[in-house]
């Protein structure tokens, strides 16, 4: 009789879990021990981690490759500024509201772009983002094409310099860790199994009775809402919105795609590794400006051709690593 045990966690994953909680606690205390430039960099890191994790959820698990997520980043920023400027809503309260409004906007948008299959879906999302950007440029009350800064009266509501920087950092940390945790839990759940089934074979999951269209739709809207919350936070980090920056395809989609591809698409760890690589490259190479972007584009192509599962996928396959185990392992005893 063959004996076996089934487990989810591995020793690596338990250590990683404890380490992650410790790291989170240390980081949460950062406003008391770190400089304001560190807070800024760490906040930016969390923003990219969150964006990459969300994009990966769509592209890596449901096959929805969007090149237009900047639509929701910009929308989040513009909604936040509108709420704060015109309705006097507290800027921090405006963040979840921006997420909610953007999710509502995403429902009709999804029903349009979902009519386009595959790669055409990608460009369709881009068109949507362009529409949003052009509309924002027409909004004269929000500065039209040149954008608008958050007036000092509103900035004051965020408290003094220390409190403002700390609360924006905490929010970034919460969003980064929150998106990661959400995706992790989602993929462990029943829906997660459905998603993996969708990724591996649409036909198979149809016969399993999973309503693919529905799952994709809900996820698209959920990701849109969360992306808009990140966009809202970005607008408060910068204290300014403008159509070209808030709806930038390079900043909010191209870099995010490179992060996920380099780190490893379709894995939870991939976006984390990718964000680290991206920030390292940026710290060392950003002085080269244009050449840095050339390098990043080339690196993404090389990784896609040589190691399509990215750095993490490559390592996981070679060494059997897993920090966020969502599947089950069977251990046979002989």
């Amino acid at each position, binding site marked *: 009789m063959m004996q076996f045990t089934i487990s989810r966690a591995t020793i690596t994953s338990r250590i990683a879990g404890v380490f992650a909680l410790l790291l989170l606690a240390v980081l949460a205390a950062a406003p008391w021990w770190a400089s304001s430039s560190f807070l800024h960099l760490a906040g930016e890191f969390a923003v990219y981690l969150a964006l990459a994790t969300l994009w990966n959820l769509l592209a890596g698990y449901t096959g929805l490759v969007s090149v237009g997520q900047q639509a929701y980043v910009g929308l989040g920023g513009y909604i936040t500024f509108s709420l704060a400027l015109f309705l006097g809503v507290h800027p921090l309260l405006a963040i979840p509201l921006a997420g909610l409004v953007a999710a509502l906007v995403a429902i009709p948008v999804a029903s349009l772009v979902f009519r*386009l299959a595959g790669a055409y879906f990608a460009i369709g999302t881009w068109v949507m983002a362009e529409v949003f950007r052009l509309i924002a440029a027409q909004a004269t009350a929000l500065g039209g094409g040149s954008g608008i800064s958050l007036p000092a009266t509103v900035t004051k509501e965020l408290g003094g310099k220390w409190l403002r920087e700390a609360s924006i950092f905490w929010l970034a940390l919460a969003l980064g860790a929150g998106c990661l945790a959400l995706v992790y839990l989602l993929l462990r759940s029943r829906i997660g199994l459905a998603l993996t089934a969708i990724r591996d074979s649409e036909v198979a999951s149809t016969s399993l009775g999973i309503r693919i269209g529905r799952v994709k739709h809900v996820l698209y809207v959920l990701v849109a809402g969360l992306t808009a919350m990140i966009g809202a936070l970005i607008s408060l980090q910068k204290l300014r919105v403008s159509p070209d920056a808030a709806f930038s395809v390079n900043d909010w989609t191209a870099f995010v795609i490179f992060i996920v*591809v380099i780190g490893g698409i379709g894995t939870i760890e991939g976006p984390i590794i990718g964000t680290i690589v991206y920030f390292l490259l940026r710290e060392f190479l950003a002085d080269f400006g244009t050449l840095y972007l050339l390098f990043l584009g080339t690196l993404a192509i090389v990784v896609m*051709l040589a190691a399509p599962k990215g750095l993490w996928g490559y390592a996981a396959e070679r060494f059997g690593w897993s920090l966020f185990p969502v599947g089950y392992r069977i251990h046979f005893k002989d």
Partner: protein
Amino acid sequence: MDLINIVLQGVLVGGLYALFAAGLSLIFGVMRLVNIAHGDLIVLAAYIAMEVIRLSGLPPLLALIFVVPVMAAFGYALQRGILNRTLGGDLLPPLLVSFGLSVILQNGLLAVFTADSRKLDAGVLETASLSFGGLSIGLLPALMFATAVAVIAALQFMFYKTALGRAFRATSDDAEIAELMGLDRRRVYAWAMALCLGVVAIAGVFLAIRSNFDPFMGPGRLIFGFEAVIIGGLGNLWGTLAGGVILGVAQGLGAAIDPGWQILAGHVAFLLILAIKPRGLFPRMDG
């Protein structure tokens, strides 16, 4: 009379959009590839034309004698060297690789040519006009439209009446069996991309004569081309021309209301058609 004029100008500009779109439509038809860098390749062609003109002193339209073969050769090499490796069942690799290519092209052009706006000077061609009754048509837009019609007619002929077109259709239908007819799909795809970039070269030169260009214009041209393809219906080249015309007219009407509405009106027309007829106005019967 003003309205007629706006529509007429829009129709003529639609020819340029059809030129943006024709290559996109061709390679989607043959290998189901959507090339995100398509617009950046149009801009690359414009810069190559600029250099050819600077070195040779040829007028822009004659520069095409060089630009078309150079772009076609580049397309062949690009397909064999990079894009063929991405083609399989999976959607992601071609999309992401061409996205990376787009970023490389934009920043490469920026590094070499700076962000300054450029323009090709076509001399009298730009100012000359033809008059019909009370209507005046610029010679350049008229030539652009006529070129688009000629290019699409030529592609149509190539696709349905020549051995190359037969190879394209067979490989598109069933690449594995086409292989058994002696058609190496890697080469068939490379020829399709060569042809696509030949058309891109023409589009790039007309773009550069008609308006200013800079390294970051590509994505916008990709989007116009894409909208023309979808409006016209996938796999229908004449439909693509109609799509370009509809887009051009919508933009013209938008601009007449408010200059800021020009591009937006084109997008709105596209989204409306997507909402009403998701398969485009003239879908091919067999899909």
